[in-house]
């Protein structure tokens, strides 16, 4: 009798045995911090009010966040970069994928991919520094040639609130366009041959092939790429930190930069905690979409 129970129990516990280390990590490094932050966000931690340090303040931090203009500005900055960079990256990336797929031989494609990988494998910090160097006001190679053509005579494009966001967006587009290109190219290369042959026999035009075969086949993949990039753009930090530090002023401060500043410049973990959790929630929702897209693809 006891032997039977033992066998059943073993069957039940085996999966968890493999999961124990992961569960510990999750518990210690995920759940515990999460609840800590939740607790922080409901208390006052501002150095501006040392007398009430650690006092519960209800949802005050959240109200403060809602009324902070720089918070809304940071969202605006994030959405501006997001709104321009994502479509540009997507269409440019898709176009590159299509050109590489249709117009180039297998061998050339394989060789060409290696230099094209350079941007997306470069560390964001390095990307930031290199572009800061290129955009440098006195001797930056971009500035020099732009000046020759009569643009940006007043110095670095990063120095002016009018040009800083377009410049940052260009860096993002440079960094990640081929990410989309590469993945969609993989999708194109994996397309089944039969429908295209059927379409050839049926006398379909290129547009019909695209509309009825290529696009529907790639749609799930496009969804995955877009949501991955969208999450990345929402979390944009490293390049910005190096390139502009959020400046000039707060004209290029993204939501991620803002969260950083509230926590590690103002050292207000109550207010910062509230901002962090707000941000976390947005990403959580986006992850849900990603999870849904990937599981539907299977």
């Amino acid at each position, binding site marked *: 009798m006891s032997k039977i129970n033992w066998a059943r129990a073993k069957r039940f516990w*085996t*999966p*968890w045995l*493999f*999961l124990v*280390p*992961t569960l510990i*990590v*999750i518990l210690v*490094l*995920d759940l515990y*911090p999460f609840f*800590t932050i939740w607790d922080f966000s409901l208390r006052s931690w501002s150095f501006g009010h040392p007398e009430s340090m650690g006092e519960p303040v209800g949802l005050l931090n959240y109200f403060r966040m809602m009324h902070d203009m720089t918070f809304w500005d940071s969202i605006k900055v994030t959405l501006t970069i997001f709104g321009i960079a994502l479509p540009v990256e997507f269409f440019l990336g898709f176009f*590159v994928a299509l050109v*590489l797929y249709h*117009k*180039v031989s297998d061998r050339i494609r394989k060789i060409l*991919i*290696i*230099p*094209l*990988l*350079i*941007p997306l*494998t470069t*560390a964001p*910090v*390095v990307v930031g*520094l*290199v*572009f800061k*160097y290129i955009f440098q006001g006195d*001797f930056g190679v971009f500035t*020099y040639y732009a000046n020759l053509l009569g643009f940006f005579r007043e110095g670095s494009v990063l120095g002016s609130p009018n040009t800083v966001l377009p410049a940052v967006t260009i860096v993002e587009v440079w960094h990640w366009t*081929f990410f989309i290109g*590469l*993945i969609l190219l*993989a*999708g194109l290369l994996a397309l089944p041959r039969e429908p295209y042959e059927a379409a050839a026999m049926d006398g379909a035009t290129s547009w019909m092939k695209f509309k009825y075969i290529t696009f529907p086949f790639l749609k799930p993949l496009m969804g995955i790429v877009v949501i*991955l990039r969208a*999450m990345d753009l*929402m979390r944009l*930090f*490293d390049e910005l930190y190096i390139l502009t530090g959020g400046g000039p002023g707060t004209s290029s401060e993204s939501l991620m930069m803002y*969260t*950083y500043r509230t*926590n*590690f410049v103002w050292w207000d*973990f109550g207010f*910062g*905690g509230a901002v*962090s959790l707000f*941000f*976390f929630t947005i990403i*959580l929702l986006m*992850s*849900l979409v990603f*999870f849904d*897209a990937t599981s539907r*693809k299977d």
Partner: protein
Amino acid sequence: MTTERRSVKKRKIDLVGIAAYVFLAAFTFLSVFPWFWNLLSSFKTTTDIWARPPLFIFDPTLNNYYSAFVTRNFALFLKNTIVVGLAATALCLVIGVPAAYAFSRFKTFIGNNQLFFFILTTRMAPGFVEIIPLYLIFKNIGLLGSPIALVFAHVYVNLAFVIWLMKGFFDEITVDLDERAMIDGASRIRAFFQLILPLTLPGLVTTAIFVLIFSWNEFLFALILTGGLSRTLPVAIPGLVTPAGTYWGEVMAVATVITVPILIFATAVRKYLVRGLTFGAVK
């Protein structure tokens, strides 16, 4: 008549073809140029860097590398980066690979899907939620500013990635093999270690390289959790941008040292690159 029509068509194709090649050439040039400029500048003297118009031909020098890695502390920072990367990678695999196996094989245990999704969010989340308490914990136990804190943080961020990617590799090995091994008399643990794990070796290597790359490039956690001599390269280079001026030559030298190994690694795993970049969602 057919031949005539074909020749006309052929000329038209050539035009589109040329346009395509021009576009690709421009796209490739723009992709490579900043990196190329970085590499070039790392061999320039300060005077050459400041030159207007920008110099493409000059006398190359290794001074920047020498002063960064010998005179300054960058050799130490490089060591930190390598140590953190290797430690985080090893730990991450040890913890994550069994979990990936569990998600691949035990499809029906309670909470499977929820847990799997939950783990994903740890990777996707903006990080601050975890980073602040971690910062406080490590500060309290006096580990702040030691690479150990960063190793933990990197394990935490990359765990989801390891699990997602490795699950894909395990899924490719038929469950029949595990079951045959167990029917033939192996225990589940033995089947996993002795039979299935060796079969995922390419997957393990790929995953390890990806984790190494992520850890190597990672900035935010490193920025907050390390300081002084415990910094990694990404956090250390901005230190060359000082109020008194920027040591551009050295910045470019260090940037090159950060970039080149990653490029080599990425080329090595390019067969699985798409898979890694999409968390295994695209095979």
